[in-house]
Structure formats: C-alpha cells, structure tokens
C-alpha cells in the first residue's frame, strides 16, 4: 500500500510538472503569437486605453481624444477634420489608420521607444507611456486657402518650400471628416460604407496617393532633359520642328492646341506649350536619357524616398519604350503618371537651382512632457539638373506666366514661374481632361531664393470642357496659395 501510495503521489507530481510546462508554453514560449492574434482584443484595448498623442498644425492641435467609458476607452476627435484629412488621415477603432495617424502611430499611441527613458523598466511595470505629439510643417493659411479655392471640385494642391522640402500645404478634395470613422459602432460602419462606396472617393488622398497623367506640365522635365543632354544649346534657337509633327515610326500626326509652334524655339514652344516641339525633343533625347532625367526629378523613386512619413505613391516614367512612345511620354502622356506631390517637387527643383530636396511633413516630434525627441532636417534628395539648366528653366517658366499660358498666376511685385498642363485621358481622350498648374514664386527678385513651389490639379466632371485647362482652372488656385505664402 505504501509503494502504491507513493506511485500515486509521484503521478500527481507528474501532473503538476505537466501543468507548469503547459503554463510556460502558453505564457512564455507562445505568448507573443497569442498577443498578436487578430482575435485578441487586448492590443486594441491597450491601444485606446489612454488619450492619443496629438497632431499640430503650427502651434495649434487639430486632433483630440474623447473618453467614451467603453471597452476601447478613448476615441479620436478632429477639429477641422475635412481640411486636414490628407495630413492627419484617420485613426479608427474599427478601420485602421491612415496618413500621419498611421505613419506616426507608434509615437501617437505611446509605443515608440523614444518615449520611454527606461524601456526595460516599462517592460516590468507595464506602465503606460504617455504618448508623444507630432508637429507638422503645414502652414495653416496656405492649407485653408488651397482648400477653399478648390471649392469642392475634385482635385489636389501641394505646396512646398523649395529650399527645404517642407510641405506647406497638402489638400485633397472632396475630403471627409476622419472623426466619422473614429469609433467602431454602427454609425462608423455606416460612415465607412458610405465613404468607400462614394464615386468621388473622398477617402482618396489625391495629393500623394493618386497619380495623374501630368500632360504639358511634364514639359519642364523634357526641357531639362534636352538642355542637360545638349539636344538644345540655345533656348532661343529654332528647333526645326514641323507642325503637325509625325511621330517616329508611326503615322500618328501630333497637333498643337495653339498656333505659332512650327519651328518654334524652346522658349517659345514652352510658353505656348507646343506638343510637337517637345515630342521631337523627347525622341531626340532618347528613352534612356529621358528616364534618367525623370528619375533625377523623383519619378520611379523607391519606397524610402516616398515616406513623408505618410507613404506617397511613386510617380512613373516608363523605361524601355520606342521612339514614338518616348515622344508621347515627353509631353506627359502615354504611361507617364505623376502625383501632385511629384509635380510640386519638379517646380521646387527648378526654383531651388536644380537641387531637389526631400519633401517632408513632420517638423518634429515631442514626448509626453513636450520635450523634442526627433527633428526632421532638410535633406538633399539629389540633383535634378545643373544650376545653369535651372536658371534657363526659371526664365522659361517666368515667360509662361508673363506672356504664355499661365498669365492668371501672375502676382504683382513677385517673380512667378509656372507651367500649365491639360492632360487628356480616358478612351480616345474622351474624358474631361485634368487641369494642371505647377509654379513657384519669389518675393525678392529673380536672383533670390524661391519662397514656395505649388502644384495644382483639378479634375472636374461638372465643369465645361473648355474651362478645364491648366491656365483656366488651376493657375488661379496656385496664384492664391503663392500669394499667401509670400505675405
């Protein structure tokens, strides 16, 4: 009996060891995988257990948190949500996060290691780290003016500071109020359904997450390529281009919207936006050299360069094309596509003497005590062209505003350079074209540094086709934004 009692006791001990091993397996070995399981609400509960950090425009915050006293306790709130949605994005309990809310989520939710002076201690005590704040580069006035001027039309505006790459305005319309998506209840589901099914795509951030054919606005890049590659030596010399121009190796005849393009000089062709001249120049530069210049301006960039930190879509210039395709690409058609951000960078690179600065949206980040824990410093993304080429392009862009297609962007007392674009698209180019205007402005004379570079795109289904042109629809918006930046 004693022996068997011991066996029974030993068996009990075995059961205890099995329990300890099982507990160790669940609590230590597999712990991380259970913590990350999508069915585990703890991550969500912890995430919303304290007020989220805030996003600042200038010295004012445009976000807040509401105590719901629910399971997921604090809910995101926004002041002027529609206006800043392309900047902030949304932070939803049910539908994830976008924009800076997503890109700076670690900091805003308190998970960022920079917020904890003693990470190991936090690991042990599991105390919550107060979240940090994000201070953006956005200029409140520019943002507001660009938003108001778009006046509900579909489109986008991006304004940059050419010498730093600071993003001063990032507007996309039609917009939405991110607060509608903050919660996870029935109302939020309804709002999500409504927004995702809306034909106008209010959730789409057109400024950085939508590419358009850039049309004639791309001629800035083509002109730079022609000058850089020695195809054009003198911008005032005739380019020997017939009008209409027959694309190499095809029977397609390219025509111009305006007259005076036959045998025009580069300067005149730029001011009048002659398709024929730029198609020919593109073919002469060649596909590879065109692609190289486009790349130098920021097209076909990798993911890293596109982090603002909100991720922008890459703009595309096709590599490997035949001569006719290069010609079409050179006038911003065919497969060439650009985000408004990219076209603002093109204008900024010209205005900054050929140096392209990496665009950024976050000035600095602070911890819970308001101490700065991270600062973005201006960074050269690369040289888009030689300073000499940039000088010539600046002259040409000024001509566009002074006597060419972009007169409506002129500002009294300031030097303004610009380029219009009216991009055809749709089947047989039947859809209402996109209107582009890219420009820069200097307040201190032609030799001074530019204060602002702007890209405006308007895609408006309701406007009359004749009205939708870079000079007509987009240039006035750019003018107001630049004017505000100069004041």
């Amino acid at each position: 009996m004693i022996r068997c009692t011991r066996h029974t006791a030993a068996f009990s001990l075995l059961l205890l060891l099995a329990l300890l091993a099982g507990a160790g397996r669940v609590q230590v070995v597999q712990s991380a995988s259970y913590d990350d399981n999508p069915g585990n609400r703890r991550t969500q509960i912890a995430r919303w257990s304290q007020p989220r950090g805030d996003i600042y425009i200038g010295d004012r915050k445009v976000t807040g948190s509401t105590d719901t006293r629910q399971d997921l306790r604090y809910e995101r709130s926004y002041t002027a949500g529609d206006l800043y949605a392309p900047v902030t994005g949304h932070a939803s309990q049910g539908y994830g996060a976008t924009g800076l809310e997503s890109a700076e989520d670690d900091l805003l939710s308190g998970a960022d290691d920079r917020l904890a002076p003693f990470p190991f201690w936090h690991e042990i005590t599991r105390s919550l780290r107060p979240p940090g704040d994000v201070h953006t580069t956005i200029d409140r006035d520019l943002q507001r003016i660009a938003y108001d001027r778009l006046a509900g039309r579909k489109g986008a505006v991006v304004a940059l500071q050419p010498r730093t790459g600071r993003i001063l305005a990032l507007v996309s319309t039609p917009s939405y109020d991110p607060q509608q998506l903050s919660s996870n209840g029935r109302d939020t589901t309804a709002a999500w359904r409504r927004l995702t099914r809306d034909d106008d795509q209010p959730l789409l951030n057109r400024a950085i997450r939508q590419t358009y054919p850039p049309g004639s606005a791309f001629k800035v890049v083509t002109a730079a390529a022609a000058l850089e590659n020695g195809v054009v030596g003198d911008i005032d010399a005739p380019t020997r281009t017939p009008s209409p121009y027959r694309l190499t190796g095809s029977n397609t005849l390219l025509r111009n919207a305006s007259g005076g393009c036959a045998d025009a000089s580069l300067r005149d062709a730029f001011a009048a936006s002659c398709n024929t001249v730029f198609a020919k120049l593109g073919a002469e530069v060649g596909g590879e050299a065109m692609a190289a210049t486009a790349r130098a301006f920021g097209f076909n960039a990798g993911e890293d360069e596109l982090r603002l930190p909100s991720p922008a879509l890459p703009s595309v210039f096709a590599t490997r094309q035949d001569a006719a395709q290069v010609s079409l690409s050179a006038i911003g058609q065919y497969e060439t596509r650009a985000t408004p951000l990219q076209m603002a960078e093109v204008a900024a690179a010209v205005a900054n003497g050929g140096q392209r600065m990496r665009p950024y949206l976050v000035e600095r980040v602070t911890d819970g005590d308001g101490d700065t824990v991270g600062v973005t410093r201006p960074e050269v993304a690369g040289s888009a062209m030689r300073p000499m080429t940039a000088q010539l392009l600046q002259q040409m862009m000024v001509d566009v505003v002074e006597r060419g297609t972009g007169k409506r962007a002129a500002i009294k007392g300031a030097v303004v350079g610009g380029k219009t674009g009216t991009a055809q698209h749709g089947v047989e180019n039947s859809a209402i074209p996109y209107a582009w205007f890219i420009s820069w402005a200097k307040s201190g004379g032609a030799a001074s540094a530019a204060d602002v570079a702007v890209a405006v795109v308007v895609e408006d289904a309701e406007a009359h086709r004749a009205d939708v042109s870079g000079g007509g629809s987009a240039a006035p918006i750019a003018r107001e934004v630049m004017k505000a930046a100069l004041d």
Partner: protein
Amino acid sequence: MTAVPAEAAPGAASNAAAAAADEARTRRRIDTPPPAPPQPRRGGSQALLLAGAIAVSVYGYINTGLALDGSVPGDTLRYAGGLAALALIGHLAVRLRAPCADPVLLPIAVLLNGLGLVLIHRLDRDAPTAQPGAPAQLLWSAVGVGLFVAVLAAVREHQLLQRYGQRCAVAALVLMIAPIFFPAVNGARIWVRIGGLSLQPGEFAKVLLAVFFAAYLAANREALTYSGGHRIRGLALPPRSVLGPIVAVWAVCLGILLLERDLGASLLFFGLFVAMLYVATNRPGWLAVGLLLAALGAFAMATVVPHVRDRVDGWLAPLAGIEEGAGTGQLAQSLFSFASGGLLGTGLGRGESELIGFAGKSDFILATAGEELGLSGLTALLLLYALFVSRGYRAALGLAARNDDFGALLAVGLSVIVTLQAFVISAGVLGLIPLTGMVMPFLAQGGSSVVTNWVIVALLIHLTHAARKPTPAAAPAESAP
C-alpha cells in the same frame, strides 16, 4: 501491508520539504517505508502561517483596489476581519480537536480561499451590472468553515467513518441522481435549486464516495489482492462477489454522470476509483485496466456525444473560430489571457480576462490568475496545491505505516480528488487537455465546491493528526518486524 522495520529513520517524514523533494527522497527507499514518527504539536507554526496567508490575501485585495480606483478599498478592514475571523475559528478548532495535525493544510486552504475571493471580487468589478460573486463566495466560505469545525467536532476518530461506508454510498447516489429532476443549466444537469439557492450535489458526493471506497476497499483488501477468481489473459481477477458491488457503484456513477452530461465529474470519479483500487490492491493491473477503460470511454464519448466532440475539436484547434471569422472562442480567450500575463503578469486589476465572458469566475478563474499574476504567480499557486496534496499523501503513508488501511485509503482518495480537480480544470484552460467543467478547489466561484473543500480539509486534518500523534502504548508493538 508491508511490515514496518523498526530502524526506519524518523526524519523521513519531516514536514519541511515540498512534494518534489519528498517524492524523490521517499522513492529511493521504496522498500523501507518510514513509520510516522511522533510529531510535536505545531500550533505556533500554523498560527504564523495563517497570519501570512491573511496578509497575502489582504495585500492582494488592496492591490486590486489601487489598480482599479487608485485608492485602498474602504472595506479592506471588513475583508481582512472576515478572513481573519474564519482563520481564527479554524485555527482554534484544530488546536482543540486535532493538535498534532499538519500545520500547513489550514493556512493553504485559507490562502487559496482568500486569493479566490480577491480574484472573484476583481472580476466583479469588470461587470458592474451583473450580480457580484464575491459576497456570496464569502458567505459560502463562512458556511464551509462552519462545516469544517463541525466535522472536526463531530468526528472524534476518523475510523468511525468506516462504519458509515454503505450509508455514504447511498447518500452519494441520491445526491448524484437529484439534479436529473431539475432543469439543465448550460447543457449540464448538475444543479439543484431550492428556493434561491443553487447547489451542485455532485460536489458533496465526491467526499462521500471517497469515504465509501476507502471503507469498502479497506474491508475487502485481502480478498481483492489475493484473488482466486478468474484469470483473463494472465490478469488475475478478484472474486466476483467482492468486486461486484464496487464496480456496480462505479458504473452507476458514470451512468448518471453521462445522463447529466458532466464530463469533468465522470473523469474525477473514474480517476478516484482507479487510484484507490490500485493503492488498496497493490496491483498495477488495475491501472492498465483503468487506462484502457478510460481510453475507450473517452473515444466513445468523443465520437458519439456531440457536446464532447465539440470540446475535443475546440481543444485541437482553439483558434479556428478566429480564422473562420466566427469570433474568438472561450478557450482562445483563456489562452490569450495566460499569454498576456507572461512571466510577471499585468498586476491585479490590470488584466483583461473579463473578455473570457461566461464562467470567467468559475471554470476560467485560473486564467485571471495567470494574466494578472503571471507565470510566476501561477507557479506559486500550483505549488500551493502541490504542497497541500503532498501533505495528504504523507498522511496516507503515515497511516499505512500504522496499519490504518481505512485512514490511508481515505487520505489517498481525498488527495486524488484535489489533485484531479486542480489538474483537469487547469490543464483544460491551458489547452493541455480538452476542456471539461470543473471547479478549481477553493479558488473558483461555487458555493457547493467551497463547502466540500472545507470538509476535505477537515478530514485531512483529522487524518494528519492521526498519522502524527504520538502512540506511546502501541509504539513498540507496532514497530516489531
């Protein structure tokens, strides 16, 4: 019974070691079982340990309040006072009625009961609208301690219980049949409702059955061990006349439980029966038969009974519901809870184990302990159970050495009950075995269970007292080879 050599070392039964060390040490001397040496009275140690148990429980209560409200709960003194009063009553009863009893049993019971109250109270706080469980649990604990005192007072010598073996069997059967006449709750017919009270008579039946098995096996040990009956494939079976009644009782138990769909209890009774039979007969063959029967039964149940099959499926793939988009199952929530606790736990009041939902305070109470106290706290808890049970087995060894077959068998039976209950539910919520409803002794919410467990403690106190008390008159005679 093996003859007891006189030279066996008295130190072998020292009460210093935990189960592990004890086992390792005693197994080496498997053929020289130590007689339980006379033990000094350990009232002082027991009082000290009780004070520690109350201190830990009250600390946990304060800790919960601090985490949830940022302040010490206003009723801390009431909770501490209530627990201390219960402990004091228990302590005095032990000092009066069983002065030589093991000083560890009562403090462990008080500590587990106290921690259980803290955990239930903590879960009450997460569901402010639902009916709170802690006050009722405290009331039941008081009833349990009352019964503990009553058992200590009424049962002068545990041997007296041997006479009531048959009556215990009848009472157990009645208790187990009773719920059939009441409506099923959550798929299991294990409840009896009288007035506003819900009782699980099956809980009480456990102790009664242990007493019956011990009495019957002790009386028929000889016959069961030295069989002259049939041999089936080399396995010698005891005569049918001896074996018949006991198998009948066992089969009836299982039958009733299958009707009541209480899988956990079936497992417990079966395990209890096999273990006690093995200890009584010294025959490993019983274990083989038992395991075979258990395997067959488990397989049959898993394939035939849909509710059992669901449990097995849920155990094999606890996260399947999430992948199918059907939501997070209870076992998955339990695993998430444990995982969230990690090594050190979130701290009392700071976990999210309320996500488990239904049965969070009863079947799944251990998940809350695992989440908020971590693997370290959970290990400490499990070691408390191990220590408790090891004292039961030691009493069995001591009583066996004193030729008290009934006492030894009863001690084994009670220890097995606590072991199996703790294991089956812990392993279930940890995903080690299919989940079966069972009450974590002392810790989980459940009046019948708390009361029964206090009776088990009272009986074990009696048994340890008997195993440890000096036997001046009988000592020379008993230790003769």
